[in-house]
């Protein structure tokens, strides 16, 4: 199977370049990550992140044939050859398929991604009704792989100011949480032409999310809440 992988070693290379690989896959190599590990066994200079190999940790997000996705849950049989692999777009390349995710996580941290509740902690746990818990479905499953934010042009142009789809999905996850008491502060924090309103609903995020989540919908709900509290 033929691959073209964007390679870059900052110690050696002036700029990134494509390296071609033509490898014979074993029958057990069913996912793209298996193929990459096969390539790595031939060329151990190839650098990539991976961990759980089952779409839970979000480490092996990369640009696969022009679309962001997780290598571990992408079937090789469904890929067009040559398979063109690039690091996630928009973030600085550390080496080969590894990018510097500092800005992505800074934006994530900026939305205070934890439940804020000033009531005395109960003995066991803060209970939710099944209906309240249902609100979190489609929000809590995010694995922070950054596929969505790095496919978003608004995040490419303003990664230092726009929270990005992943961060905004997480923001709504806490806004929607019945146990959280900081809704107003969270809306204040996001009410900004750059932090939230750079989203123009082009929905690249929805298109690429490997977990099938819908950040655009969550962002729409945040905007709706802002209008509701003001009108």
């Amino acid at each position, binding site marked *: 199977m033929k691959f073209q992988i964007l390679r870059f070693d900052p110690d050696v290379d002036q700029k990134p370049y494509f390296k071609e690989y033509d490898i014979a896959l074993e029958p057990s190599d069913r996912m793209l990550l298996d193929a990459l590990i096969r390539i790595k066994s031939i060329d151990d200079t190839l650098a990539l992140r991976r961990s759980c190999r089952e779409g839970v940790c979000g480490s092996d997000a990369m640009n696969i044939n022009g679309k962001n996705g997780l290598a571990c849950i992408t079937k090789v049989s469904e890929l067009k050859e040559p398979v063109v692999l690039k690091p996630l777009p928009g973030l600085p390349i550390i080496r080969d398929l590894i990018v510097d995710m500092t800005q992505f996580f800074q934006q994530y941290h900026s939305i205070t991604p934890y439940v804020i509740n000033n009531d005395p902690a109960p003995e066991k746990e803060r209970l939710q009704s099944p209906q309240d818990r249902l609100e979190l479905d489609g929000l809590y499953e995010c694995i922070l792989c950054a596929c969505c934010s790095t496919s978003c042009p*608004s995040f490419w142009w303003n990664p230092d100011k726009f929270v990005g789809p992943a961060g905004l999905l997480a923001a709504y996850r806490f806004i929607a949480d019945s146990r959280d008491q900081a809704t107003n502060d969270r809306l204040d924090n996001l009410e*900004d*032409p750059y*932090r939230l*309103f750079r989203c*123009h609903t082009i929905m690249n995020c929805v298109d690429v999310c490997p977990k099938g989540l819908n950040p655009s919908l969550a962002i729409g709900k945040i905007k709706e809440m802002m*209008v509701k509290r*003001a009108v």
Partner: protein
Amino acid sequence: MKNSKQPVGAHYGWKDWMIQRVTAAVMLVYSVLILGFFLVHGTVAFADWKQLFQSQLVRILSLLFFFAVFYHAWIGVRDVLMDYIKPFFIRLSLQVAVCLFLIVCSIWTVSILWSN
């Protein structure tokens, strides 16, 4: 030394977001009405067109439409400038230029609609 801090948190946005949707709705309704006029009349001669715009209501609705277009354009173009033009002074200058241009367009629209 230049201050390199990147301040964020202007606390506005929802009104523009809302206005963009409302103005879009105004544009849609007016466009459908005008399209309806053309469909009803078949061929529209200059005299029909002139007669249509003798009506105060048509003039006011047209003005509303054009104001909606200009406000919608302002928010859209401002967003594009915010996305792509990084140097602050150039961005501000372009925004002021667009703003002034749209104000001139608005005044011109009034003068056209109420001219004979």
